[in-house]
């Protein structure tokens, strides 16, 4: 009898945890999906209302002339006017560069830049970010171990 009660207790403990985790995951996935649905391509077209435009990761696709170029990121394809206004982090812009811009919106597909920043490749940022990640993961598993019976992390040397 005691054995069965113990089994039930363990079962209820896991059920409680399972339900909590399940509810949290559903909430997270729902909010993520809501965000995904909301910010589609049309959203970005519609919010251009003459205000300031700050965006990064705009890859230069074509340079039309000394005043305008075509650039795009995942969500935006834009004609950037006045792109030589104030160029930071480089002397000249060429096709393939990634730009961050501060601009005013002229019409839904055109912006007039007043600040252009040439972004350095993201590769090195990712590489150096891996260093602290691996160090902390190492220390995490040095001071915690996973108990598969209880399905929790327990402290070593606690």
């Amino acid at each position: 009898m005691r054995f069965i009660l113990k089994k039930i207790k363990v079962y209820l403990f896991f059920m409680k945890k399972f339900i909590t985790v399940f509810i949290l995951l559903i909430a997270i996935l729902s909010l993520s999906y809501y965000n995904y649905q909301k910010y589609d391509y049309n959203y970005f077209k519609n919010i251009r209302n003459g205000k300031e435009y700050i965006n990064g990761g705009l890859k230069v696709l074509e340079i039309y002339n000394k005043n305008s170029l075509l650039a795009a990121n995942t969500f935006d394809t834009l004609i950037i006017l006045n792109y030589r206004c104030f160029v930071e982090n480089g002397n000249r812009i060429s096709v393939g560069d990634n730009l961050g811009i501060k601009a005013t919106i002229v019409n839904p597909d055109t912006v007039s830049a007043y600040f252009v920043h040439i972004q350095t490749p993201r590769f090195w940022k990712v590489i150096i970010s891996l260093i602290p990640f691996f160090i902390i993961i190492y220390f995490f598993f040095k001071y915690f171990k996973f108990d598969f019976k209880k399905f929790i992390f327990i402290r070593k040397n606690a």
Partner: protein
Amino acid sequence: MPELITHTTFAYLIRRRNLEIHFFILFLLGAMLPDLLTRPFTTFFKPEQFFFNASHTPLVVLLWIILISQFFEKEIRWNVFKYISLGTLTHFFLDLFQNGSNNIGYQWFFPFSEWNFSFNLFWADESIYIAPFMAIIFFIDFYFFKKKK
């Protein structure tokens, strides 16, 4: 986002000096958490980036922290939640100074409001120049703290 060296070093420097090692590690993990939950995915699934970007908003990160803390001993669960949350706050604090990498910014009040705020002091890629200095400060602090102990 500044890269993770800047995030973790900043958290390392402002930590409580007598913090127990287990919570200290969780505090540093919290300082990286919003980026760990999003960047690996947004890098590879660019068209779906806003699905994953939700996990870089304060509310969703809070849900993630509650979820993560479920996988720790009951006696320390509150402290796990507290220190990961505090670490995450340092992350958001640094992000506050950066230019938005997309046109909607960091969505501080997602899903309730689209109001966004940033000091726009530097671009996402520029923090790579700060990282070596942060690493040096880290090693100096680490050396003297260890010596003091």
